[in-house]
């Protein structure tokens, strides 16, 4: 018998704001030009603050040109604009023509900086259009639903019925009500884990399904290489984050974009891990750059309303974990990870999947039983304190904290960047902790974890890399022993759930044999070489140790190894 997920109680949510014109993201795009001008002005001011002398500024500009030209030479992407080389040689020439005498920052240097920041701002900016948003949304929903019904009900005509909805396939659990309330009270920054390129599309759907207005996204520019995704991303309010560009003007412009959008009340979404998790583990180190903008934006909102009792719009951070049985890119991700960790050689980020592969995956995804679960974490303020559903920050004893007090020195709200760096680090740690707490363990995660650890334990003297090179054919785990271990570890996970340290999917409980079967059937289900299978004797074997390692990593960080 197939173990099914409990039906989702949530039958769908009414939108919290009626009519797209009321959405903050729409307001941003309507006043796009003014908004971007503000981003440019403030970024320029910030960069000049960080590089106050002419010498420092010119050096920064030279470094930027050098890096950009290098990038163009070494690592070009389909999405890069054609006039790039020309633009940067233009900047280079302008820099050469600068006079050498140091007489403070003049109009000329400023003009060069302005050209660069202007270019970056327009490159980053998303372009939310209500008409294409509506089209994209209904397009995705329509086809998802058709595929779903066509596959579940095995009759030809079924493809035109609507018996199953997407939410039967994608389970949204956790603090949904709170998220909806917070989105009405303040500005929400959603921070999901990042495992797959599918995440961006998935989370867009989740936001819509919960009745929330569109969020602005920081989406990796590499995604825009895939045309079909690029189309949807553009119309769903995404702005572009180019991880190749590490120069100061770019990073400051990017942060300022997010900062000002937040101050204007646009709900935002970042993947704080930066890129997809290469190892398959839940993020334990976050990129703090974009995260820091939520703290900065909150402080600026308090600065703009300096009276102690003023009604200031609060920013709420909501961690989200996405749980899959199967990650399309797993073999490449883990390969990347092992290469970097093994220090053999380094691969630049590349995607081997075009539109066709993606469609094929989507088709497989909908035609076979592989569920996805999305868990929404509790709301936090920008310092990582829990908030109640009215948006009040609470301390460990449930006393109300005024978030404004964190930005006060000598009785006044003030700017202290070092302090805020520290706050960002604290917030990052809190988010990582929440990820582990709200993570929903699937049967497939646990069978992968246990089998890999059992195999690894047989070779205590080998390091990871030597172990991974062992031939897969010789690895076989006796089913009875496996079952015992599974029951033991699962018991520990039950205990951890009672302590509030982790969560698990509904299919995770029940008869051990059935849960194990569910796990084995689903782990990495569409890979060419399955990470786990049963052989004729009923024992467990693997066809791809690296990929097994990837799925195993999902449960590292819980100290479960000692129960194997």
């Amino acid at each position, binding site marked *: 018998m197939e173990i099914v997920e409990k039906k989702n109680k949530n039958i769908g949510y009414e939108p919290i704001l009626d009519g797209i014109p009321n959405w903050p993201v729409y307001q941003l795009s309507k006043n796009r030009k003014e908004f971007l001008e503000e981003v440019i002005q403030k970024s320029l001011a910030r960069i000049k603050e960080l590089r106050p002398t002419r010498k420092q500024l010119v050096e920064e500009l030279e470094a930027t040109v050098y890096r950009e030209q290098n990038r163009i030479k070494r690592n070009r992407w389909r999405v890069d604009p054609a006039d790039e080389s020309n633009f940067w040689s233009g900047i280079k020439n302008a820099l050469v023509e600068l006079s050498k005498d140091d007489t403070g920052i003049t109009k000329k240097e400023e003009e060069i900086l302005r050209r660069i920041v202007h270019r970056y701002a327009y490159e980053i900016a998303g372009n939310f259009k209500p008409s294409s948003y509506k089209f994209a949304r209904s397009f995705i929903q329509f086809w998802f639903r058709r595929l779903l019904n066509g596959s579940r009900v095995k009759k030809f005509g079924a493809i035109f019925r609507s018996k199953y909805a997407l939410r039967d396939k994608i389970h949204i659990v956790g603090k949904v009500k709170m998220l909806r309330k917070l989105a009405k009270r303040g500005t929400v920054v959603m921070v999901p884990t990042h495992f797959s390129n599918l995440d961006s599309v998935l989370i867009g759907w989740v936001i819509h399904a919960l009745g929330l207005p569109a969020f602005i996204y920081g989406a990796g520019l590499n995604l825009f290489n895939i045309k079909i995704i690029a189309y949807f991303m553009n119309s769903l309010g995404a702005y572009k984050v180019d991880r190749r560009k590490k120069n100061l003007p770019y990073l400051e412009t990017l942060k300022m974009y997010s900062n000002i959008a937040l101050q204007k009340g646009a709900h935002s979404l970042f993947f704080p891990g930066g890129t997809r998790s290469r190892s398959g583990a839940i993020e334990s180190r976050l990129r703090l750059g974009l995260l820091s903008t939520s703290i900065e934006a909150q402080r600026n909102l308090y600065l703009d309303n300096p009276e102690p009792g003023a009604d200031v719009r609060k920013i709420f951070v909501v961690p989200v974990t996405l749980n899959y049985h199967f990650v399309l890119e797993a073999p490449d991700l883990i390969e990347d990870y092992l290469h970097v960790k093994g220090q053999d050689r380094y691969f630049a980020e590349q995607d081997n999947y075009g539109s066709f592969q993606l469609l094929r995956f989507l088709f497989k995804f909908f035609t076979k039983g592989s569920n996805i679960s999305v868990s929404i974490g509790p709301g936090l303020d920008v310092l990582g304190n829990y908030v109640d559903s009215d948006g009040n920050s609470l301390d460990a*004893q449930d006393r109300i904290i005024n978030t404004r007090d*964190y930005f006060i020195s*000598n009785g006044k709200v003030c700017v202290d960047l*070092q302090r805020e760096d*520290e706050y960002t680090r604290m917030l990052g740690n809190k988010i990582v902790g929440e990820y582990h707490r709200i993570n929903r363990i699937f049967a497939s995660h646990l069978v992968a974890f246990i089998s890999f650890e059992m195999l690894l334990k047989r070779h205590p003297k080998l390091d990871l890399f030597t172990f991974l090179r062992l031939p897969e054919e010789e690895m076989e785990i006796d089913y009875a022993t496996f079952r015992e271990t599974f029951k033991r570890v699962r018991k520990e996970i039950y205990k951890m759930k009672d302590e509030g340290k982790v969560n698990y999917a509904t299919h995770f409980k029940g008869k051990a044999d059935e849960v194990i079967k569910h796990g084995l059937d689903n782990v990495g289900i569409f890979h060419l070489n399955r990470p786990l299978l049963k052989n004729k004797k009923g024992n467990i074997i693997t066809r791809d140790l690296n990929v097994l390692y990837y799925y195993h990593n999902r449960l590292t960080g819980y100290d479960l190894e000692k129960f194997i």
Partner: protein
Amino acid sequence: MTSRNLSDKPVGVIGAGNFGSAIANILATQNKVILYARDNEVVQRIKETRENRGHKFHDNVTPTNDLESLAKQCEVIFPVVPAAHFRQMMRNISPYLYPYHILIHGTKGFDITLPEGKTVEEVKVLSRNQVKTMSEVIREESVVVRVGCLAGPNLAKELAQRQPSATVIASHFKEVVETGKRLLRNERFQVYENNDLVGVEMAGVLKNIIAIASGALSGLGYGENAKGLLISRGAVEMIYLGRALGGNIKAFLGLAGIGDLVTTCNSPMSRNFTVGYRLAQGEKLSQILMDMSEVAEGVNTIRIVKKCADYYKVRAPITERLYKVLFEGVTVQDALEQLMRYPLDVDIDFIQD
């Protein structure tokens, strides 16, 4: 950021022990100070005699018994209470603290949370889940985030005599370090900074173990060679333990580590040194502790650290032998002989070249 008008506000000191009184006096040269004592009698006595534990108080010091009013008047507070009472003190003051408060503590001990009715010896394992530094206790028990600690060779008696001395203030927040510096620094008192809060706390706590050992060597009548051996091996042991417990090496090489270690290991004035000295003279621990007016943190630290060293599988020969002396009735002489037979290998192996 640390503007002048802050100095109008009084500075708080919690704990009127030896070190607390000394700190209050240093602060009082430039600021109004409110000094909290748990015992109302002590407050009354200070009010009448202006003296406590041999410290003659500056006019700027006002004693109080009221934590609430102290928290309301002071934005900067220096808690200096024994580790065993620290958590309870934080719970008492916590309702009156806000995120803009700055707390710089001067307590060199660990906080430990045990199941009801159990002792350190009775629990199976002890790890960092149960053992916390004071800054961690502050974070757990209150909304205060601007936390720092004060460590270094600061013998209260020498401070009281205004002999030259230095301290290190550690915090993740520049603001905390700057504030502490501004409040404490004077021509006789130098203040250094460090941003490895936990490392500095660890160094301050762990050096007490070696101080007891040093007292024991003196008590046996040994001279400087033995002490040199102890200090250098002791420093290595501290670094190993500190690393296992979450600090990094650098803090141990500075004022809070080596600086404090050398001072306490040479000073008959230090409480921990006295414990070791009298043990070596053949006295029993219970008897020694009874005679002392203040807590020797090192004794408890040895109990806790020994258990942690077992859990984290760190070699800690000095701590282990001292544990046997303190709690298992082994004589100092026997412990030392065992230590001298200990198979030593490399001199320094914690710095990668």
